[in-house]
C-alpha cells in the first residue's frame, strides 16, 4: 500500500515533467521517423534499382494465368508488372522499362488442360519438352539479359510448373486424395505450433522499420536509467528521501515504490513505439504479436533494474550523466542498436551478449522478421532479461540498504 503511494506520487511527478516525457515518449518516435525517412527511403530506392523488371502480357486472362502472374510477383528480386499487349511489351523492352517480357498467349489455359500427369513428371520427354511454347508462352529478354536468356526461360518454366502441376495432379482422383491428405497434415502441423489465425509478416512492410523500431525501442528503454537515477538524487537533495525513510515504509517497499512507476512508464513507452511503428511506418508486429508483450515487459524490467542499481551508486547529477551515457550509448552500440546485429563481427556479436540490449534485440528480431520464430529462443531471451533485471534490483536493494540505512 505504502509502495503504491510512492508510485502514484512519482507518476504524477513524471507526468508533470515535460522534458522527461519528451525524452521518453516523443523523442524515440521523432528519431525513428527521421532515420526511417532518410536511410529507410534511401535504401528502398537503392534496392529498387537492383530489381529485375519483368513485364507480363496476359492474353489468356484466365484464372491460371493470373495465378502465374501472382507467383512470379512473389519471387524476390523481381519487379513484375502487367503490360497491355505485345507491341507495348516490345517498346518497353527496347527503351529499358522492362528487362524481361513474359507473354501468356490466348491458348494458355487450353494447353494446360491438355497436359497429363506424365507431362508433368517427365518434362524432358512429354509435351513440355518443347519448353514454354508448349504452353503458348513466350519469354523475351532485353540486351542486359541476352546472355542468360536460356536460364531465364528455365526459371519462368519452373515458376509456371509450380502453379500448373497441382492443377494437373488434381485431375487424377488417386493423386488428388493423396494431395488433400498432405495439405490437411500440413495444416494440422501449423495449428499445433499455434499458427491458426496468425498473421504472417506483411510482405509489404519495410524491413528498415522492422529492425529500426525495435533497435531504438531498446535503446530508448534504457534512457530511463538517467531519469530514474535523477529521481533518487532529487529525493536526496530535497530531503524527502529522509522523510520517506522515517515513514512506516520498509526499505524494500520504498524501493518498489520508486521502481514501479518507471517500469510502468517503460512498458507504456515500448507499447506506444510499437503502435507508432504500425500507424506511422506500417511496420508489422510479426506472426505472433502477443509474444511481443513478454519481451516488452522483461526489457523494461532489465532497464529499471539497471536504473535502480545506478541510482544507488551515483551521488551527483554529473555522475548520472556520465554513467547513463555509458549505459545508453555505449551498450546500445555494442549490442547492435545502431545497425543490424548481423552486420556486427562474430566476436562482437558474442561480446554483446553481456548486454541486456542484445538479448532484447534477438527476441524482437526473431518475432518481427521471421514468419515462424523460434519460441524457445524468444523465451530464453526473456529469461535472461528477467534475470539481469532481478540481479540488478537485488544488488541495488542491498546497496541502498547499506548506504541509506544504519545496520
Amino acid at each position, binding site marked *: 500500500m505504502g509502495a503504491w503511494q510512492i508510485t502514484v506520487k512519482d507518476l504524477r511527478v513524471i507526468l508533470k515533467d515535460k522534458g522527461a516525457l519528451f525524452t521518453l515518449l516523443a523523442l524515440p518516435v521523432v528519431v525513428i521517423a527521421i532515420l526511417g525517412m532518410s536511410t529507410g527511403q534511401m535504401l528502398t530506392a537503392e534496392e529498387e534499382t537492383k530489381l529485375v523488371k519483368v513485364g507480363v502480357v496476359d492474353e489468356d486472362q484466365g484464372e491460371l494465368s493470373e495465378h502465374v502472374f501472382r507467383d512470379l510477383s512473389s519471387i524476390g528480386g523481381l519487379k513484375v508488372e502487367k503490360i497491355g499487349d505485345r507491341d507495348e511489351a516490345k517498346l518497353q523492352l527496347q527503351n529499358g522499362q522492362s528487362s524481361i517480357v513474359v507473354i501468356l498467349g490466348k491458348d494458355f489455359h487450353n494447353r494446360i488442360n491438355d497436359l497429363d500427369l506424365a507431362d508433368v513428371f517427365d518434362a524432358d520427354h512429354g509435351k513440355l519438352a518443347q519448353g514454354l511454347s508448349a504452353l503458348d508462352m513466350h519469354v523475351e529478354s532485353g540486351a542486359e539479359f541476352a546472355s542468360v536468356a536460356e536460364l531465364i526461360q528455365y526459371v519462368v518454366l519452373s515458376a509456371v510448373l509450380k502453379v500448373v502441376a497441382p492443377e494437373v495432379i488434381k485431375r487424377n482422383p488417386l493423386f488428388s486424395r493423396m494431395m488433400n491428405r498432405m495439405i490437411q497434415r500440413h495444416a494440422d502441423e501449423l495449428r499445433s505450433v499455434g499458427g491458426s489465425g496468425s498473421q504472417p509478416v506483411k510482405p509489404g512492410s519495410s524491413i528498415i522499420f522492422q529492425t529500426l523500431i525495435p533497435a531504438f525501442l531498446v535503446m530508448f528503454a534504457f534512457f530511463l536509467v538517467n531519469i530514474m537515477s535523477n529521481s533518487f538524487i532529487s529525493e536526496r537533495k530535497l530531503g524527502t528521501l529522509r522523510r520517506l525513510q522515517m*515513514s512506516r515504509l520498509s526499505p524494500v517497499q520504498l524501493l518498489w515504490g520508486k521502481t514501479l512507476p518507471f517500469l510502468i512508464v517503460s512498458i507504456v513507452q515500448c507499447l506506444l513505439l510499437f503502435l507508432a511503428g504500425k500507424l506511422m511506418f506500417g511496420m508489422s508486429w510479426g506472426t505472433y504479436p502477443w509474444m511481443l508483450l513478454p519481451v516488452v515487459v522483461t526489457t523494461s524490467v532489465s532497464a529499471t533494474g539497471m536504473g535502480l542499481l545506478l541510482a544507488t551508486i551515483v551521488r551527483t547529477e554529473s555522475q548520472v550523466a556520465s554513467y547513463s551515457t555509458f549505459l545508453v550509448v555505449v551498450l546500445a552500440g555494442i549490442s547492435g542498436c545502431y545497425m543490424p546485429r548481423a552486420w556486427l563481427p562474430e566476436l562482437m556479436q558474442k561480446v554483446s551478449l553481456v548486454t541486456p540490449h542484445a538479448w532484447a534485440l534477438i527476441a524482437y528480431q526473431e518475432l518481427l522478421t521471421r514468419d515462424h520464430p523460434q519460441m524457445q529462443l524468444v523465451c530464453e531471451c526473456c529469461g535472461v532479461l528477467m534475470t539481469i533485471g532481478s540481479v540488478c534490483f537485488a544488488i541495488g536493494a542491498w546497496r541502498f540498504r547499506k548506504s541509506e540505512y*544504519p545496520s
Partner: protein
Amino acid sequence: MTGLDISHLQKRYGDQTVVDDLSFHVNKGEIFGLIGPNGAGKSTSIMMIIGLLQPDGGSISFDGQLYNPRNAEMRSRFGIVPQELAIYPQLSAIQNLLLFGKLNGLGGRRLRERVDYVLEITGLGRNADQTPQTFSGGMSRRLNFGIALLHEPAFVVLDEPTVGIDPQSRTNLLDAVRDLSTKGVGVLYASHYMEEVEAICHRVAIIDRGRLLKQGTIDDLLDRTQTDICVMVAKLPIELIQRLHGLADVQSDHDGNTTLLIRERLATEKEVRPGRLRVVLELLEQAGVPMLAIKSRETSLESLFMNLTGRTLRD
C-alpha cells in the same frame, strides 16, 4: 524514564571524531535547544537520533526503550523537520500532506482531519491546492514543518526550521512549537538563531567540535548575577592591551575604536560592584587614553555562545 535519552553518543569518520560522548535528556513536553557553530556535530547528532546514521558508541532511548530505527512503530513516534525543504515542489500542498499522512499510516477520516488541522495551524488553508513552486519561503517552511506533525508524533526534531523566513512566519512557527510543548510533545530544536532558542527553549545544550560544552536552563547558563560593562575608547597601544589581559576582553571596531568588555558581578539587580572596572579605568587614565562611552550589557545566549565557542570562523 520518559522522553528522549541520549547517552554517551559517539560518531567517528576515520580519525576524526565528529560527535564525542554527547549526553542529554529531553523530557516530555520540553523544548530542548541544541546550538553550536557550523561543523559542531548538530546535524550528525540529529541523524543518529532519528536513526538514519549508525552511532559508533552510546545509546538512544525513548520512553525507557532502546530506540530501534528498524521498528516502524517506534519510528513513527518521531516527527522530523529537516533543514532542507523536504516537500515535493511539483505536488500541491494538500497532495504533499496526503502523501506523507498515508505513508505514516493515516487514512480515511482521520487523515482528512489531520490534514485540515495542519493546514489550519500553518495558515496554508487557502493555498492548499497550490504547489510549493508558487509559495514564498515562509509558506514552504510552514508546510515543511506541518508534514512532521501529521501523524501526531510523541517527539519532534526540528533542524534549523526557520532559515530564511519573515518574522510573521517565524512567529507562527514558534507559536506552533510552543503549542506542541503544551500538548506534552518533546521537542529537540537545533538552530543558529540564539534569540529563537532563548525565546522558546526550556533547556539548551551548547556543543562544539562534537563535544557538549554546557547544558542547562537559560537562566542557569546565562548566570543573571553578572553583567557585561562595555567601555569604548580610541585605539589602544599594544603594551596597554597586554596589561588589560585577564581584566577585559578587547575587541577592535571597524571604525578604528576599541571596545573593552568587562564582566562584573551585580551587587543587586541593577547595581554593579566595580572590581575589574576600577582597575581598567585606572590603567586607561595612566596611559592617557580618553574614554569615549560606557554602557552595561546583559549577558545573552549569543554572548555566552561566542565566549564558549570563540570567534574563529568555521568551515
